[in-house]
């Protein structure tokens, strides 16, 4: 199957989301930005342990895709998953507590930043093994198809994941079985430190979809409306039972791979970083909302303030939460275990 990406993209309806939808996406983007900006400060202040991979600059991807998901839909993401998890509706207080390694964390501080799971809102997991979530998403799609309630699965990963065997195996099986999975490649140009030109022979990763016989579409990951449109069609297609779609979102990671990796020490030209920051996804949406008379500057400010207040409250909740008792490390290895037997 030959793929004409321009034609695939042109097929997407140019429908404009309504005021409430645009406001929600704006709120999501601002919330993720403020949450992670604070995380970086907390990490640098030594208040967060472990490793931290932030998503700053890529927020339009999570907002534009997750707006189409219902609570009962499933979401899988990568080590860079804070944005997706928040966009899917996870409790921010408990998420912050998880990052603070507190007992009240979503995963009782067993998972941490790279492994957040929130079953209550369908987050089946952030996953720190690159591409491992692709076959898992396929399996969640199998369960969704079996249940027959129109659930879909959104699976986020980076450009680096598309070179992994698990990506190939998982997406091929989802395609073969027409499973309701939307695979979203956030092509932020770097696989850890390695630039795309050094990890793939092709420029447009979406063409890989042709090898699986499924639609491959692209959008500007800095344009939330463009993301919204491609995701709308992909999610609808999955809900209709027509199988998976591969979406490539061209985006950019402002920070190094992990917060402890200095950005300049890894060979990214200053001009490149500056050029992408000039295309930050939040200001264009603000301009659109103002110019179209959808929100006033006061209303925008109120959304920002509310998001900031949520982040502050989450931090306060986390700081006030107890640390886990050490001996609870032995809990939850198995759901069922012979009474009295040592682990």
């Amino acid at each position, binding site marked *: 199957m030959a793929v004409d990406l321009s034609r695939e993209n042109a097929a997407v309806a140019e429908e404009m989301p309504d005021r409430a939808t645009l406001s929600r996406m704006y709120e999501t983007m601002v919330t993720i930005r403020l949450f992670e900006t604070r995380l970086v400060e907390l990490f640098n202040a030594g208040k967060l342990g472990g490793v931290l991979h932030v998503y700053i600059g890529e927020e339009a991807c999570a907002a534009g895709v997750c707006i189409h998901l219902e609570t009962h839909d499933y979401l899988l993401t990568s080590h860079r998953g804070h944005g997706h998890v928040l966009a899917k509706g996870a409790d921010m207080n408990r998420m912050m507590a998880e990052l603070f390694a507190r007992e009240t964390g979503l995963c009782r501080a*067993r998972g941490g930043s790279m492994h957040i799971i929130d079953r209550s809102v369908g987050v089946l997991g952030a996953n720190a093994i690159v591409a491992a979530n692709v*076959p898992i998403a396929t399996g969640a799609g199998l*369960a969704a198809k079996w249940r027959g309630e129109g659930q879909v699965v959104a699976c986020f990963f980076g450009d680096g994941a598309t070179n992994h065997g*698990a990506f190939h*195996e998982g997406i091929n099986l989802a395609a073969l079985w027409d499973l309701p999975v939307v695979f979203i490649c956030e092509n932020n140009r770097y696989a850890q430190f390695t630039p795309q030109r050094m990890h793939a022979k092709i420029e447009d990763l979406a063409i890989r979809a042709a090898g699986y016989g499924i639609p491959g579409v692209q959008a500007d990951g800095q344009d939330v409306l463009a993301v919204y449109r491609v995701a709308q069609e992909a999610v609808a297609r999955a809900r209709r039972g027509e199988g998976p779609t591969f979406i490539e979102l061209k985006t950019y990671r402002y920070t190094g791979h992990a917060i402890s990796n200095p950005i300049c020490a890894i060979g990214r030209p200053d001009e490149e970083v500056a050029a992408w920051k000039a295309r930050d996804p939040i200001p264009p949406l603000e301009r659109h909302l103002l110019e179209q008379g959808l929100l006033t500057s006061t209303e925008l400010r109120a959304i920002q303030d509310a998001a900031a207040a949520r982040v502050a409250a989450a931090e306060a909740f986390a700081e006030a939460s107890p640390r886990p008792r050490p001996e609870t490390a032995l809990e939850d290895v198995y759901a069922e275990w012979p009474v009295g037997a040592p682990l």
Partner: protein
Amino acid sequence: MAGGGAAVRELQYRDAIREALREELLRDPAVVLIGEEMIDPWGGTFGVTKGLSTEFGEERIRNTPISEAAIIGCAVGAALAGMRPVAEIMFLDFIATGMDQVVNQAAKLRYMSGGQVNVPMVIRAAGGSGRASAAQHSQSLEAWFIHVPGIKVVMPSTPYDAKGLLKTAIRDPDPVLFIEHKMMYNNKGPVPEEEYLIPLGVADIKRAGRDVTVVATSRMAPRVLAVAERLAATGGPDIEVIDPRTLVPLDRATILASVRKTHRLVIVHEAVERGGFGAELASIIGAEAFTYLDAPIQRVAAFNTPVPFAPDLEDFLVPDEARIEAAVREIAV
């Protein structure tokens, strides 16, 4: 073993496994089989799943590409989302290509979620040597998995055990690796007509004896029993044969009680000796029953090499009756 008065048939190991799968497919619509060439007319490389796709359809017996990472990963995802998948890895050796999904995913997700999610899945795989299939189709890799907290490991040695344990494994809320032995599929044994379950973590004393405890797994269990019967018939040591049946969880109590009675222990497995289950068990017994032991613990295992092709070489590596008997005699009074 079978309940008193119940109707009992002789079934092959393969048929007992098929019955377990069939009964669970009938019982629970969430059960789905995922693997290579399990559908009819193939019915699996060893004929275990023959007839199931005809009866239950190809939505429930799902034929996959040769993609072990996808087979296991798909089972993980389906389990997370409410199904009870049974994945089949045709030869246990192939699990190496899907290892991340076993070790970093299936085994970890419940723990990393703080107990929010379960991963109720089974991976069935044919292990062991004996078919002149050489080093990539003959391994006994159970030790890899007993080293990974979060997964359970089952190795049945009889048709009765295989059926009862597989049914339990499918209903278990945790990931279970169910290792079948490819040379035992034709073995016959009694299996009751009516339904039964065997709990995980309960060893079976296959033969009671006074003088030496021999713990044997999988195909080594019937081999040790043959040695025991021959020794008994010729006035040799009286062997107590214990099959742990599940390595994780391990029924330490039954083995410890036996060693405290016989004061002697031989451990027999087909996997290579180095870093094997025998080392783990010997350590447990050494720590918990040291003062009861009247002789050094003996391990009888494959030599530390890959499995070769030539039957002459293959047979040499794996513990045979002569090596088992020699180890028993070494420490028997």
